């Protein structure tokens, strides 16, 4: 009798397990892919936090059509190889949709994995034009692409009267693409490229490059890579007595840039993505972010939060967890978030550029006149 009683208990337990599994399967699982380790871990942390904030808010309102939303995070470390592993992990976990991606170099090889699996993927930060070409139709770029930024950059150069530009990148997909596009656009507009240099990520000493730029006679430097290198480069340019203008790509929008560059950063121009400080309606979000996570919202926090809301909105409009329906719903997005409007072109890129030139004044980014 004892034995059969045990069996009964086992059977009940198993049935219970099966029921919880069934309940879990009805949930919607969103994969977040971002650099959680490596050089850009702090941006990745911001992206994860902001997306989770949006998802938590949706769950607090009862989820999507009564289904709870869960998230799972995969670390791509901004490294192409690790990104492939992270992408495969998310696919094998059976996620409904994926959001994230900061470095274009790391996002590029994953597009095929997500495309083959037919998973809707909204890219938050990465914006190289190479991504547009490699997209299989399931990926959406929520950030303006590199060519939009190149146009904004050339407009700024002309307005400031720069004639000879030195372009410096870090050799990765994003920064070399932006450097190339800007150099071409500037040449077409009648400008001259005085020097085109590449540095090593993680390096502290830029003196050799600085010396070359200075001796090339450039009016201004355009740095297309990220803030860690940008701050060091700015400092070392000013230390070597470079008097010309300094313009930074959107990867430099971080409070850390201003902190590290210090007084050397004064008067530096930045092509800014829509950050919380530049957005009029983001004050509540900024305060809530700080309260929830104990740190300031970084450059892509607002956009990440919008993408979190966007995916919830798309799944709700698709009225099911069917991935094809979600992709169609994303295509038809007409979404207004903190960072502005999200409407996609037929290539799944943003219809309107979200870059704004800003200038560093008194350790703050203010809109450039």
């Amino acid at each position, binding site marked *: 009798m004892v034995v059969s009683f045990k069996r009964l208990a086992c059977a009940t337990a198993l049935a219970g397990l099966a029921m919880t599994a069934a309940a879990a399967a009805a949930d919607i699982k969103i994969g977040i892919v971002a650099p959680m380790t490596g050089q850009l871990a*702090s941006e990745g942390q911001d992206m994860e936090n902001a997306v989770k904030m949006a998802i938590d808010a949706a769950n607090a309102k009862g989820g999507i059509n009564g289904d709870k939303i869960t998230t799972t995070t995969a670390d791509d470390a901004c490294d192409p190889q690790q990104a492939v592993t992270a992408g495969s992990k998310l696919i094998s976990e059976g996620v409904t949709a994926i959001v994230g991606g900061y470095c274009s170099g790391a996002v590029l090889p994953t597009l095929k994995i997500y495309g083959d699996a037919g998973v809707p993927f909204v890219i938050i930060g990465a914006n190289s034009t190479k991504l547009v070409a490699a997209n299989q139709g399931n990926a959406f770029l929520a950030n303006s692409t590199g060519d939009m930024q190149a146009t904004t950059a050339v407009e700024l150069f002309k307005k400031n009267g720069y004639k000879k530009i030195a372009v410096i990148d870090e050799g990765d997909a994003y920064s070399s693409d932006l450097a190339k596009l800007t150099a071409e656009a500037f040449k077409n507009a009648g400008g001259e490229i005085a020097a085109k240099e590449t540095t090593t990520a993680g*390096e502290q000493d830029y*003196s050799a490059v600085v010396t070359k730029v200075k001796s090339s006679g450039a009016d201004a430097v355009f740095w297309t890579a990220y803030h860690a290198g940008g701050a060091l480069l700015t400092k070392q340019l000013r230390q070597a007595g470079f008097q010309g203008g300094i313009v930074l790509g959107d990867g430099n929008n971080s409070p850390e840039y201003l902190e*590290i560059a210090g007084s050397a950063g004064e008067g530096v121009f930045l092509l800014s993505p829509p950050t919380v400080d530049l957005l009029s309606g983001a004050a509540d979000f900024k305060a809530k972010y700080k309260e929830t996570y104990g740190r300031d919202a970084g450059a892509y926090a607002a956009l990440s939060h919008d993408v979190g809301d966007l995916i919830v909105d798309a799944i709700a409009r698709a009225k099911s967890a069917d991935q094809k329906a979600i992709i169609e719903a994303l295509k038809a997005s007409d979404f207004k978030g903190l960072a502005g409007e999200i409407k996609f072109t037929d290539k799944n890129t943003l219809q309107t550029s979200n870059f704004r030139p800003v200038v560093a004044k008194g350790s703050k980014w203010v809109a450039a006149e």
Partner: protein
Amino acid sequence: MTLDLVIQQLVNGLIVGSFYALIALGYSMVFGVIKLLNFAHGDIYMSGAFVGLIVFSFVGVWVGNGWAGVVCALLVSMLAVGLLGVVIERFAYRPMRNAPRLSILITALGASMVLNGTALALTGGRHFAFSTDLGFAGLDVSAVHITYTQIVLVAASILLMAGMQAFVSRTMYGKAMRAVSIDMGASRLMGIDVDRVIALTFFMGSALAAGGGVMAGAYYGSVHFFMGFIMGLKAFTAAVIGGIGSVPGAMLGGLLLGLLEAYGSSLPFVGSEWRDVFVFGALILFLVFKPTGLLGRSVVERV
């Protein structure tokens, strides 16, 4: 290349070279004494920079953000991180001393990851500003601007290295270090406390790396958990070029590597993206054609 450019790149090369030399010294000393490539050395440099930044932000309130603060940070960090080196040796390397070479090499990689991972967990991957009041004032040599900070920096690292060289060649402890590096077993029979000598080697090597870390942090104005990675690789290259195991070799290798980088990337038709190709190309050439480096002794393998 114009003369100005030659002088400017000389200054650039000497500065970055003196950082390489400081870190290479620790690599070289540890290798000399226990034949271990201490992969954690780059992370010790990074730890030094962080300890220095913490001390700097505390003492800065009293002594200001100028030289006094930097020197305080330098001394405290060298002491603390020197002890960290001793602790790492005691718990990670000493139990492995008689294990096969490969095992201890993997232990060193593990120690590197522990330090790197701890720093990432504690700092959240942020880049911290190391803001000093050192400023950009300096001398103008024709069209080349050399700041006082740069002069002090090169002088300080040369002083540290010369002190180290004097310690190794003139004192009893230095003699004991050299004896242990030649034959550990015989040294023990001669009454040398081998464990203490090895601990001392780790202390001094780590303290120098920490000194390099604080100086680099203050000079470049930024500190982050990943800063030791490339520095570790470059310092290793410098140690090999100079002759691993040799103290003057590490200094020479570091300075040469710095100059190679500076001049290599300003060659006509060669972009700065080729800089690391020169560095690691030199490493391969030395390993193939002169593995003992410029000043290293050839080691006779005793069977």
